[in-house]
């Protein structure tokens, strides 16, 4: 799996899709930390080679693996969980999922703006909006916390082995297409 986009370093396999999604959260956090360090670095060093490299790495992640992660959730995990939550009469889970889906859309819009700044940095122009970085990082971190607190525990409780296998297969297929 190491050759697949979004999973460059060792991670759980597609036979453990929920663990894999959780591992993605750790990688997202690492990218957010890079983004924040980049901002500080630009203030002290300007658009040097390290800044351009970090900027390119963050773009690569959120353009690729980050998008795939959202697709895993929006297209596969959330619809499945919404259905299971309705059956189990867990309306609070459905409400959290609605909120998380909405946040994916917000993060997508924020990323579009942030990306322009990163592109400028890659081109040697230190034009990264600190306010945009602060909002993006805060929203992403809260989003991850909510998923970890409510959605993943419910998924572990509610998904059958067969459903987990199906989810893992779709995630793998998505990355084969993207590769």
């Amino acid at each position, binding site marked *: 799996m190491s050759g697949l986009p979004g999973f460059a370093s060792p991670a759980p396999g597609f036979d453990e899709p929920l663990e894999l999604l959780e591992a993605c959260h750790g990688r997202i956090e690492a990218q957010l930390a890079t983004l924040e360090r980049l901002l500080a670095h*630009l*203030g002290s060093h300007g658009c040097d080679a390290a800044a351009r490299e970090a900027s390119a790495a963050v773009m690569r992640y959120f353009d690729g693996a980050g998008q795939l992660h959202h697709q895993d959730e*929006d297209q596969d995990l959330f619809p499945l969980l919404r259905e299971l939550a309705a059956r189990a009469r867990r309306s609070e889970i459905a409400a959290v999922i*609605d909120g998380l*889906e*909405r*946040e*994916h*859309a*917000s993060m*997508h*819009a*924020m990323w*579009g703006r942030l990306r322009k700044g990163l592109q400028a940095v890659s081109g040697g122009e230190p034009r990264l909006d*600190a*306010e945009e970085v*602060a*909002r993006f990082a*805060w*929203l992403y971190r*809260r989003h991850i916390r909510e998923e970890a607190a409510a959605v993943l525990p419910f998924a572990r409780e509610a998904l059958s082995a067969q459903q987990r296998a199906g989810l893992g297969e779709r995630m793998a297929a998505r990355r084969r297409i993207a590769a």
Partner: protein
Amino acid sequence: MNSSAARRERGVDARQSGREALRYLGEHGKESDMSIDIPQALRLEHEELHHFLVRAESESGELAEAARLVARLLEPHVRKEEAFALPPLGLLRALARGDAEPGMAEVFAYTDWLKAHLKDMVAEHHAITAALERLLAAARAAERPEYIEFAEKLLNHARLEEEVLYPAAILVGEFLRMKLPRMRAAELRMGGR
């Protein structure tokens, strides 16, 4: 670099930029009121206050010391305001007209932050207010009416934020949560782009 530091580095004269902005509005009718952005009037007020503070810092003695303390406390606070607390107010006019659209859901990232950090923001105001009282005393002792007026204006600005602007920003989020129907990600993306 944060926006106010950038402004300081560029040496922007707030009054000048204010005049330019007003001229722009005169030429172009009005700025967009469908975006999550700080209303121009507030941005100009922040710039003017910042400009005056920079001037006070260049004075000497206790006046300058007190101004520097205000600046030190104000800088990170304003950065948070400009990132999270004030941009939701840019939607007020549109919402008052009844124009709510799915893309506005992005404002929850701002208003949820403000709700979660409201106590901290108010606590920071208390520290800033104490520093402003010192500045006010220094301005009175130095018989500098322009700085007395400035400190009083800034004190009232903090009150305005606590009593009106922060609650209004939070209400923008609360209102939209009630107003916007539940929408799936695909629909929201279409509206949010």
